[in-house]
């Protein structure tokens, strides 16, 4: 690593580094980048440190560091709020959401990018338009529909809502369109039905996009709280985020307990981030541009 000569790949080229002003500017770029890192990471570190403070210390201490690293406080919050139950609920909710996100959006994307039956263009345009439509804007009628069908206090509507995500459909479409069409055509000639082609040819080639959609869906489903709150509120199935939302709007817990709940709610996304940071930082790119 150290032996490999690193080259400048940006606007600044290798030969620019001979000039003193450019070198000073370059050092300045690093200073700014490290400031950015501090800004990005400090609040996260702070909230973890704050979790080690009890209420009295949290409300009165004028120090960032806690007096002691007492893990007992975290354990106490965990058992007091019965967060294990909420964690389990969140996991069930996330698992079902990911499955729905992959199957339903994947099949729709397959139809719109490879099968292309007559009239598909209209549907594709509708999906593209839905990208621009804010999700929360129709939350009221959506909630009413769910109520009318008697699906309140159940994970089902939350799972299925991830099967109707225009962004994931577009991601699938873009990926499927980049697949070698000759292979798909060949399987068709060999007598495969569209659904066989999907499972035997398309799906095995699509692991990268499935991973990306799965990671996004896991994080989105974990962090989601508006629809889950409306569907699950008051019931036994509340997720971690729903609990947190209730805490924050009804102020039923103390500020220090709140900070520990925040930490608990961040642990799974952080684990996900550590495991998949490469996929995330590289693929956010294609999502963002098209989304």
């Amino acid at each position, binding site marked *: 690593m150290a032996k490999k000569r690193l080259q400048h790949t940006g606007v600044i080229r290798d030969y620019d580094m001979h000039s003193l002003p450019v070198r000073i500017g370059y050092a300045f770029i690093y200073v700014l980048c490290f400031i950015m890192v501090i800004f990005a990471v400090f609040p996260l570190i702070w909230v973890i440190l704050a979790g080690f403070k009890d209420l009295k210390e949290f409300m009165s201490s004028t120090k960032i560091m806690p007096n002691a690293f007492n893990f007992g406080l975290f354990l106490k919050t965990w058992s007091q709020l019965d967060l294990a139950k909420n964690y389990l609920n969140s996991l069930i909710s996330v698992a079902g959401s990911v499955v729905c996100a992959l199957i339903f959006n994947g099949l*729709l994307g397959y139809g719109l990018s490879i099968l292309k039956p007559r009239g598909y263009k209209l549907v594709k345009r509708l999906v593209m338009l839905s990208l621009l439509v804010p999700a929360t804007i129709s939350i009221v009628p959506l909630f009413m529909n769910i109520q009318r069908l008697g699906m309140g206090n159940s994970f089902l509507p939350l799972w299925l809502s991830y099967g109707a995500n225009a962004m994931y459909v577009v991601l699938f479409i873009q990926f499927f369109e980049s697949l070698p069409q000759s292979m798909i055509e060949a399987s068709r000639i060999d007598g495969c039905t569209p659904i066989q082609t999907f499972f035997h040819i398309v799906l095995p080639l699509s692991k990268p996009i499935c991973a990306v959609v799965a990671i996004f869906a896991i994080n989105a489903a974990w962090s989601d709280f508006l629809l889950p709150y409306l569907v699950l509120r008051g019931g036994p199935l509340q997720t971690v985020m729903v609990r947190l939302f209730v805490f924050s709007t009804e102020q039923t817990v103390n500020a220090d307990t709140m900070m520990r709940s925040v930490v608990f709610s961040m642990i799974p996304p952080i684990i996900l981030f550590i495991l998949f940071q490469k996929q995330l930082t590289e693929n956010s790119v294609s999502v963002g541009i098209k989304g």
Partner: protein
Amino acid sequence: MKKISIHKGRGKRTEAFKSWLIMLPGLVLMTFFVWEPLLESVRMSLYKTENVELVEFIGLKNFISVIGKTNFTQALINTFSYTFWSLIIGFLLPIVLAMLIGETVRGKGFFRTAAYLPNMLPGLAVIILWSAFFSGGESGVLNILLSKIGIPKQTYLTEANLVIPIIITVATWKGAGATALIYMAAMASVNTELYEAAAIDGANVWQRVIHILLPSIKKLAGTLLILQIISVFQIMYEPMVLTKGGPDNASLSLMQLMWQYAFGGSMDYGKASAVAVIVTAILLVMTAIYSYFNRKESDWD
């Protein structure tokens, strides 16, 4: 080639039928969760509602009653104010970050990762975290930090002039890094020979930024700008959790007003839908203006 066309001709109709069958589950879900609720909210805005029932067609009365209240004017102004501040604080920052990180040679991966991290954290948790940051007492984190450089303690979230910029700052903290990565991808796709050629012609680093790098992201910046406006215009849970719309409605947003009508106790779904329809209409107009100018520009190109 011939074989394919023969094959296609034979089973065309059944094949199309099967294709639609494959898409059917996805289409049903899209209809139920996205398309129908959108149309339904237009219909509902014209009705008097009682719980989940549409009781009586009342024309535009919901709209008149919603718009007539002072909190609507306030929320409309606030929402535009959110948008304005997000352009000031949140639009250029990702571009600058992308330029900075893009120039680094060592540690680029580390900087990218750090920049993206806040975007992964749950939005609600981020808001609660920052509310403690901006808390007005002596134990508020910002007050602790500022006291070190001698600035006396302030109250932040109760200052009518400060709440909106603060909420936008928090939203920017979460989103800017992820947006920067999008810009970085666009910047990385610039043909580096252009830089070499410009350098040979005597262009210094700054001139290369102005004449090569920035033009290369112009189109992307336009797209991200409109997406940013659309998303900030629907800002809702941030003020809901951070300030509850206060002080004195100074941070109340339109979508928050919608939530209040629907779920804030009165369960007036008709009026809530009226607010949603107004927001949608404003967004449609803005999108139309954008695509009009965008088209004109590409004609010129």
